[in-house]
Every structure is written in structure tokens, then in C-alpha cells.
């Protein structure tokens, strides 16, 4: 990578109440780049984002090892004041359910203006003027008149737009988006993804997109990291990973999708279920469900290697 990464997560290991939920997770995001973090429920993708932002409650969560470098600073070593200066300012965040992230007793204008007052020292009036501009930017028209509305008066799509306006208020270098469109209808999802893409290009912002939706990732991300049972198992440019997946889990996951199969035909499935944290064994956590497992897979952890296509598998699919 020519440029220094904006965010570099190195060997991140996190435990919840003593059980490891995230193990040796490493990835980086260059300025302006979009990285997709994908996987099924419980794979650790949200924990990765929350711990990178230091938003995990501890206890029960504890970082056992690793570094999280944002613009060269180790997020894990920062005091609370410095952390607050970065979060919501240099790093913006949006989550799946905007209703629980918005404060129900404040108007949306006040909530957007707040971060400008806190982080940029803007005056109340200037901040509200900027809030109106931001609402317009995220596609809530007649923005001045909307500033006095409360979250419950808005639709789900509008609330997510407000969350994006708040996240973008300070023109962050990185946007962390955790399932930002999962609760939305598909036509509204298309609007929101279009909006994020447009703002990203205009502002040169990097995005860490966390989702279970492989289609969304394929259409919006530059690079993709696939997680399984607390580890990254494969990482590659989006165009490569979907065309020639090498990890057997990624391959199986893509094959099970209805869209990848002729209508009505029996879908390939992955036998068994994801092992819960604490029962993941010493080797590859996917080995018990893997059709291509070798004897060594259960006992020996495969290292993740290769560039730009990284894969952690003893018996990967052909690179084709």
C-alpha cells in the first residue's frame, strides 16, 4: 500500500466474560477506501467495529491483545478526552437501528448541531445553519423546516438519513457503518447506499461497512474481509473475492445464495452450525462443516497469508 493506512487493526483479540470472541483480527483501510466486513450472526464483525471505536462495555468485554491505529494513534492507549475528540469528529458512526441511536427528546436539528458545537466550537446559530445544510445534503428537503422535528415523527429511512447527517457533520475521515441499511426497505436501501457513495466520493471519506448482505458489499466495497467464528478467514479486492473465492467458507456461503442458483433447484447448504465462542477448537473453526477439510485442519490453525488476496485455509480453492 503506497499510502499510510487511515485505520490499521493489528492482531486484535477480544474476550467477553473470559471467552474469546475475536481472535487475532488484522486489517487496514486506506484513506478514501471502502472495506466491507461480512459474515453471519455471531462471527464478530460488529464486535470488531465496536472495539475499534472503543465502544464495547468493559466489563464484560476485554481487549486481550493487539493495536488499533487511527491516523497513527493507538486508540487503545488514548484517554477519554482524546477519544471523544476523535469519535464523532474524525470518525463518524452509523448503526442499524437509528431509533435507538437518536435521542427521542431532542429535535433532530439540535442533535446534528450538537456535534458541531462540541467538536468544532461552533455557535448555536451557526451550527443550526450547518445542520440545515447537512439535512439537505442527505436528502431531507425543506431542511430548515425539518430541524424542529423529533425522531418519532420521521420514517425509518429519514431517521437513517439524520444519523448520516450527524455522522458526517464534522466531515470525518472514516465512517463506520454497522448494518446501516438492514432495517430498511430495498428501494430505500438503494437511496441510502447511493447517498453514502456520493458523499464518500465528494469528501474523500473512507468507509468500514459491516453487513451480512453479500450483494450490498459486492456493489459498494473496494475490498472485502470475510469473518467466521471470530476470525478473518479471507480478504481480497471485492471483484476478486466474489469471482474466485478461495476460502472454503466464503465459497460455500456464495454457493448457498438463491441468486447463485437456477430457480427451483435444490440449494447447496453448509452442514452443521457455527460453533459458539469457547467451543471453536484449536484448528480452523470451519473444519467440522467443511467439505474439503484435511486431517490437519481440525488441529492446526491455518495462517492467513497472501497479497492482495489473503486466505487462511490449509486447502484453499484454486486461484483460477
Amino acid at each position, binding site marked *: 500500500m503506497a499510502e499510510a493506512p487511515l485505520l490499521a487493526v493489528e492482531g486484535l483479540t477480544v474476550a467477553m466474560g473470559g471467552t474469546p470472541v475475536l481472535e487475532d483480527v488484522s486489517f487496514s483501510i486506506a484513506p478514501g477506501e471502502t472495506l466491507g466486513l461480512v459474515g453471519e450472526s455471531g462471527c464478530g464483525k460488529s464486535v470488531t467495529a465496536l472495539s475499534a471505536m472503543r465502544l464495547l462495555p468493559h466489563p464484560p468485554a476485554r481487549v486481550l491483545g493487539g493495536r488499533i491505529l487511527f491516523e497513527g494513534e493507538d486508540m487503545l492507549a488514548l484517554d477519554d478526552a482524546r477519544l471523544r475528540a476523535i469519535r464523532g469528529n474524525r470518525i463518524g458512526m452509523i448503526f442499524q437501528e437509528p431509533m435507538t441511536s437518536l435521542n427521542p427528546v431532542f429535535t433532530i436539528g439540535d442533535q446534528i448541531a450538537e456535534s458541531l458545537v462540541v467538536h468544532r466550537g461552533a455557535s448555536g446559530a451557526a451550527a443550526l445553519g450547518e445542520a440545515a445544510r447537512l439535512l439537505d445534503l442527505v436528502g431531507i428537503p425543506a431542511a430548515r423546516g425539518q430541524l424542529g422535528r423529533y425522531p418519532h415523527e420521521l420514517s425509518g429511512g429519514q431517521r437513517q438519513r439524520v444519523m448520516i447527517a450527524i455522522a458526517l457533520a464534522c466531515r470525518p475521515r472514516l465512517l463506520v457503518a454497522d448494518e446501516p441499511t438492514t432495517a430498511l426497505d*430495498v*428501494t*430505500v436501501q438503494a437511496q441510502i447506499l447511493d447517498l453514502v457513495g456520493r458523499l464518500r466520493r465528494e469528501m474523500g471519506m473512507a468507509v468500514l461497512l459491516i453487513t451480512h448482505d453479500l*450483494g450490498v458489499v459486492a456493489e459498494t466495497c473496494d475490498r472485502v474481509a470475510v469473518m467466521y467464528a471470530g476470525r478473518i478467514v479471507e480478504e481480497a479486492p471485492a471483484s476478486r473475492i*466474489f469471482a474466485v473465492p478461495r476460502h472454503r467458507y466464503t465459497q460455500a456461503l456464495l454457493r448457498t445464495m*438463491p*441468486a447463485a442458483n437456477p430457480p427451483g433447484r435444490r440449494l447447496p447448504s*453448509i452442514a452443521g452450525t457455527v460453533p459458539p465462542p469457547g467451543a471453536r477448537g484449536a484448528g480452523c473453526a470451519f473444519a467440522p462443516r467443511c467439505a474439503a477439510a484435511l486431517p490437519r485442519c481440525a488441529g492446526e490453525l491455518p495462517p492467513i497469508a497472501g497479497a492482495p488476496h489473503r486466505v487462511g485455509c490449509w486447502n484453499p480453492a484454486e486461484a483460477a
Partner: protein
Amino acid sequence: MSPLLEVRDLHVRYEARGGTIRAVDGVGFSLARGEVLGVVGESGCGKSTLGRAILRLVEPAAGTIVFDGEDITRLDRRGMVARRRDMQVVFQDPFGALNPRHRVGEIVGEPLVVHRVGDRASRAARVAELLELVGLPPDAARRHPHEFSGGQRQRIAIARALALEPRLLVADEPVSALDVSIQSQVINLLSDLRARLGLSMVFISHDLSVVRHVSDRIAVMYLGRIVEIGAAAEVFDAPAHPYARALLSAVPHVDPSRRRDRILLQGEMPDPAHPPGGCAFRTRCPAAEPRCAASAPALAARRIAGAPPREAACHLLEAA
């Protein structure tokens, strides 16, 4: 052969604070024996209400539902309870639908008790048969719902729905809460059951690729009405109604060759208590003309360039 189910001019209304919501506003379709009709549309389009109204789990305000030649809207409560032996439903949330205090055997066998089918021994045998049918181990009968994963709980709900050998299954988002790898197992199960038992299905989902995979025909709903209905391949590959076109274009795909030029809709679905007059889609329709405000277009066969006529409700498509 006469259709198994025929719905004519069905209306369901809810009284809400903002006024009367016409959740289902004049819907008609028929379902052949052994056929799967997929119903798609976004939140608030009325697809779930339609599914419940077919079984009279919500009471229609007007219209008729003919099941196997009998007008079931005329049945009294007792007659309807007896009729539901043939008409069962599976919902999205498999946990909310299962009583956590009961053992799986009691849950699956409950319809047999309610409808006084067989004696204790024959019911136990039937439960064992049903568990095997949906791919659960025999000892599942003695366990409680919380001991099962989401996918297994959905199998339990399906086993219960099949206990009385229904001829119609209304499946309302049956795989939406499940991870991709588990989703494919449940979709396969439903396909197997359809083939083995000759089940007819109304399959309701917001997930268009799942609906495409399982359905013979597809109905697209918008604000309480069917705007287009036809053979799954035809509707999916070449949607005719402007809303159906926008909806299908919004689906993100992993496979670049499946992506279509995205039609971004403006705004969101109007307040269902105050839908626009004329065609309800006209406020967001990229092709709307003045005549679209004058009257609501009927769902009728219309000409499509290079394809057989399609049933669609749009003034811009010429009647066939």
C-alpha cells in the same frame, strides 16, 4: 381443475389515529393446486395483512375468499376453525411463535389435540413422523424451544403447521430471520415438502431473490394493491409496472452480470392512511402523467414489448 384458492376484491381496513388505513385495498388472485405464489413488496404494502386475511386471522372488510370451492368468508367461527385444518401459517419469528414452556413434542402435536385427531399413542407417532419430515432428531420432542437454533426453531414451526396435513401454507417471511447458510436449508425443506405433500403456498417476503427461487408466480404489491402479477421468470426478468421495475432494480447482486441500471425512487411510501388519489404510485413514479392522478388503473392484461401480455395496474401500459 378449479383453483385451490380464489381471492376476489379483498379489502382489509384498520382504524388508526391518522384515519382509516386500507391495508388491503381490492386484491384478487387465484392459486392453483400445488402452486407457489410469491408476494413481494416493501413495509406497509399490505402483504402480511393479505396473508393473515386469507386465513381470516384478520377479518376482511369486504371481498370473498373461496377455498377449495367453498366461500370461507361466510363461515362462522366454528366452521372456520374446522377449515383451518387445511390452511396453515408459518411466521418470520420462530421463537415468538413457540411457547417456551412447552416441549417441542407438545408444540408440534398441539393442532392434533385441538382438532381431536387420534389418541395419545397415535399422536406421539405422528409427532415423531413430523420431526423426521422436517429433519429434526427424534429426541427433539422432549426438549424445549430455547435448546434449538433459529433454523431448527423454524423447522419446529413448520412441523406444527404440517401436523394436520394442510393443503395451503401461508409462509410469511419464513427465512428472513435466518443466516444465509441456514436460509438455504429451510428453503430446501419447503421445496421438499411441496414436492412430497403437494402443498400450495403463498410465500410472502421482502427478499426478492428468495421469492424468485421458490415461486411459480409473483405478485408485486404497493400500498394495499397488486400492481403486477405473472409468471416468476417473466415478472423477475422483465417487470412491466414502473414500481416493480424500480423494486427489482434496487436489489444488490453479487454477480455483476445480474445488475440492472438502478432506478432510484424519490421519497418514501406515502402515509397509508392518506394515499394519493388515482394511481397510488404516481407521487414517486418516474413516468407519471397527468392522467395517473385522474383514476386508479385496474389490474388487467396489458401489452408488453416482445413478451406475452402481463397483468399490471398502470395507465402507461396499453390494455391487451
